[in-house]
């Protein structure tokens, strides 16, 4: 179980607990329950890399405590 921090630089900072083998899509759903936006409106990036929905966190080498950028579609 890892905890990922998502920050949208406009005041929304969300800490989400998830598994390593969850996909980005699952992570988006968890973020959606916490922030209140819809899951398909969320875009998770790291600098200019937009993270795709079907790849797991483990494959993106997202570790515990790592910060990701939260953008909206």
């Amino acid at each position: 179980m890892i905890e990922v921090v998502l920050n949208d630089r406009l005041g929304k900072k969300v800490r989400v607990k998830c598994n390593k083998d969850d996909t980005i899509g699952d992570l988006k759903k968890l973020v959606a329950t916490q922030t209140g936006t819809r899951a398909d409106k969320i875009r998770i990036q790291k600098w200019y890399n937009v993270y795709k929905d079907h790849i797991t966190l483990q494959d993106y080498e997202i570790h515990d405590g790592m910060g990701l950028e939260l953008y909206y579609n």
Partner: protein
Amino acid sequence: MANRTDPTAKNIHGTNPQNLVEKILRSKIYQNTYWKEQCFGLTAETLVDKAMELDHVGGTFGGNRRPTPFMCLVMKMLQIQPEKDIVVEFIKNEDYKYVRVLGAFYLRLTGTDTDVYQYLEPLYNDYRKLRQKLADGRFALTHVDEVIDELLTKDYSCDIAMPRIKKRWTLESIGTLEPRRSALEDDFEEEEDKEDDDQIMIDSEPDAREKDHYRGRSPARDRDRDRKRDSHRQYRERDYDRDRDHDHDRDRGRGRDRDRGRERERDRDRYRLRDDRDHGRERGRERERDDRESDRRDRDRCRRRSYSRSRSRSRSRDRKERGGDRDHRKRHGRSSASPRKHEDENGNVREESKKKKQKKPKEDGTDHPDPEIAEANRIRASLGMKPLK
């Protein structure tokens, strides 16, 4: 200049019509090449030509969420705000299905409740296929009536949040709308007549188009509902299946509970679906035998369960109640002073959760000792994900 709404346009739902589409999507549409090239200076007539050239429906697609031409045309209609008769013409035309769906979408966004139901429900009879562009860019097959159903029942479609409309039964109860007559009703009545000769008569709900089963209805109303033929069974079958699973935990009233038992029997015979139907049948039989006892039990259960929404949540709530009450009792040493109702409930609660725990260890991790993790697991279970490791 080109993106301003027509100055003579009226406000829709209290706002500039273009604001029905949210900001991010709106800016994406304005920057889209289709919008800039094709949708410049369109009037209602030329818009029809563009609409006839449409070949797929959809919201946004791709990694950067580009809007489809369908979206751009919806936006254009919101901008120029054509007359209602033009929109109705769009809907009524039989030749071009995408024009129809475009008109229906626009009407759903801008029309009043009555109009929406009145004009969109006839489209349920249109079974033509449509090409839908999904979010990842692929095409999927859908049908006109599926799209209309989505417009009428969900509050989000093609990446646009639909304005709230009243439920159909609300409009019927005020009298602005007639109860829904389906095109298949006559066929069903025949089938009903044949089957009901051998079956016992059961209570049933009057209107098939009730989408919101989970609104609280008074038990008196359930009881008073006479035994009517259920000619709208098929439409409700979906809801029924959902209900049946939930009904093991959720009771909304004694009358309905009894009904469910009998209905399960009947359904098993008639439809021959899954195994849990048998389980339901046994339950139903039990209930019929010990009517009074079960009523009392159900009443208590109902009172408690009426606060819970989902199985896992009710379980966690049981646990909270149970834990809280035990501590409370210990601290305050109350053995019988609490009002009988409450105690009865708790007694019941504890008994039944214990029974459940013995029967089935929880797999979705909502019984984790750490409350935060239990909460997280509950959310994950509700989303359909496995628990945290």
